[in-house]
């Protein structure tokens, strides 16, 4: 074998090895989640409140709190994100303002989430006098916003211009064309973007640490500190108590399953909708 063939052989081996390593890590993470998570899983996880150290309990308040925080965050971010994305997609091609805002949106997308938490702490928690569910939801909304904006913009750009021209030709003003035609055509793609940001924010921990904080009580009051899964998992996993560690694994399994399912759903959605339309 000559040198070139040996080099090529090693190269292909390295590439395959790297991919196998990536898959191996994913497998190891999923395996440890499932094996440890199932050990701590049971109906009590959904029916009992978060316990004190060493005693029996579940994650009911944390699960409900997380659902409320995520839902509120998305409800805040969605209309703003869609409108902003619409403006960017309709903006003039040479618009400097649109270019700058697009760049800033990219920066916001990659800003460390803990800094967003600090920002909401300084503006909301300090001024309203305490940690609250609203502060947590707002931090999550800020994290969801850039993804929704760029998904909306990209999807609206894919809408065929002929469709919009047909609408305008019937005498519809631009905003009717956008809301009745473009949004409908781009809908599945925009929903995918929203689902992906649901998946992202439902696992975020750092921005909740100093906004929603955490709580051991069952509360649906967004004005008070709110229990949530990620912070609970963090606290319980870092603790020396075995019962807490088990609950942390159960919570981790729940949250990862939720996120992976949403991700797969989000990616399959456009194809599913298309298939249904063709059949109809």
């Amino acid at each position, binding site marked *: 074998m000559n040198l070139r063939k040996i080099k090529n052989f090693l190269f292909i081996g390295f590439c395959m090895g790297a*991919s196998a390593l*990536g898959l191996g890590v994913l497998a190891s993470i999923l395996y440890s989640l499932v094996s440890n998570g199932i050990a701590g899983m049971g109906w009590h996880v959904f029916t009992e409140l978060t316990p004190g150290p060493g005693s029996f309990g579940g994650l009911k308040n944390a699960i409900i709190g997380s659902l409320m925080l995520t839902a509120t965050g998305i409800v805040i971010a969605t209309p703003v994100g869609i409108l902003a994305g619409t403006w960017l997609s309709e903006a003039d091609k040479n618009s400097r303002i649109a270019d700058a805002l697009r760049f800033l949106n990219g920066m916001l997308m990659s*800003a460390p989430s803990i800094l967003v938490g600090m920002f909401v702490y300084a503006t909301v928690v300090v001024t309203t006098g305490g940690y609250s569910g609203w502060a947590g939801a707002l931090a999550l909304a800020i994290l969801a916003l850039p993804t929704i904006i760029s998904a909306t913009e990209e999807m609206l750009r894919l809408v065929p211009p002929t469709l919009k021209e047909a609408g305008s030709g019937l005498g519809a003003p631009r*905003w009717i064309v956008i809301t009745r035609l473009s949004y409908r055509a781009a809908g599945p793609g925009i929903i995918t973007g929203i689902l992906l940001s649901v998946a992202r924010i439902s696992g975020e*921990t750092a921005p909740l640490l100093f906004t929603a904080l955490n709580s051991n009580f069952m509360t649906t009051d967004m004005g008070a500190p709110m229990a949530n899964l990620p912070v609970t998992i963090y606290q319980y996993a870092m603790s020396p108590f075995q019962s807490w560690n088990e609950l942390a694994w159960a919570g981790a399994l729940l949250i990862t399953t939720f996120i992976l399912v949403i991700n797969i759903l989000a990616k399959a959605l456009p194809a599913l909708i298309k298939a249904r339309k063709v059949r109809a």
Partner: protein
Amino acid sequence: MPTISLPKRPDGDTLFFRLSFSSAVLILLVLTGIVLSLIDGGWMALREFGPGFVFRNIWDPVNGQFGAASAVYGTLVSSLIAMVIAVPLSLGVAIFLAELAPDWVSQPVGMAIELLAAVPSIIYGMWGLFVFAPWFSDGFQMWAADHLVDLPLIGHWFDGPPIGIGLLTAGIILAIMILPIVSSLVRDALKTVPNVLREAAYGVGATPFEVVTKVLLPAIKNAAVGASILGLGRALGETMAVAFVIGGANRIETSLFMPASSISSTIAQQFNEATDPLHISSLIGLGIVLFMLTFVVMGFARVLLKKKR
């Protein structure tokens, strides 16, 4: 002749575009808000310690002395370790998926790698602490204590307690986290290279190795560098995964096995417990340093990625 006056209607277009424009401007407002609130909160620390805050190597909440050096060191070193491990591996994965594997392999494997990117960071942290760290301690650190410590120049990197957590562990976990991001970006870039280039290279008898290194990688150089820097930006700002495994000691140690702290892990671990206003302000001051680091790195990455398109 009577003139017909149309009833006055609110102009929907103007209203709609004003509304959507103000939503778009919100991006700018939020970013400005983040910057202003950080500067406002960190002002006390910056005034107390001056711009030298960044380089002061002391973090002593008991005596009210603060400096960013140890946290900056932890952030930079753990991210550097992550890059050294993740960049070559990501290139390997991307090349495997885009160039070497048949579709029936690359589709599911690509999907799996993308799922790895969706796993939230606390899960990486937990996995790192409960699964990886014990294994790393037994499987590598014990061995390193016997075999690597006496190496010239780099031996002291491995001179520390084999407890499984510390700077090196944090770097490895970060590498695992950025691997899927970098590899899927590079894979997408590889797919944009026109097929005629590959065919021409294979046509003159090049091996896959030569096609990739001499034709494809030069063609996507900007995108690959941009993707790597994007990964670096993620590593610099990552909080939870690092907070689990870095150990939480605000010291600068040359050993990579020693517990350390990054900027974000220091903030996550101390912000809620801090009561001294100067301590809080210093933590926010760390936030300013982190913001500047990531902003510069990310801006650079985006410019490079854009050039390619």
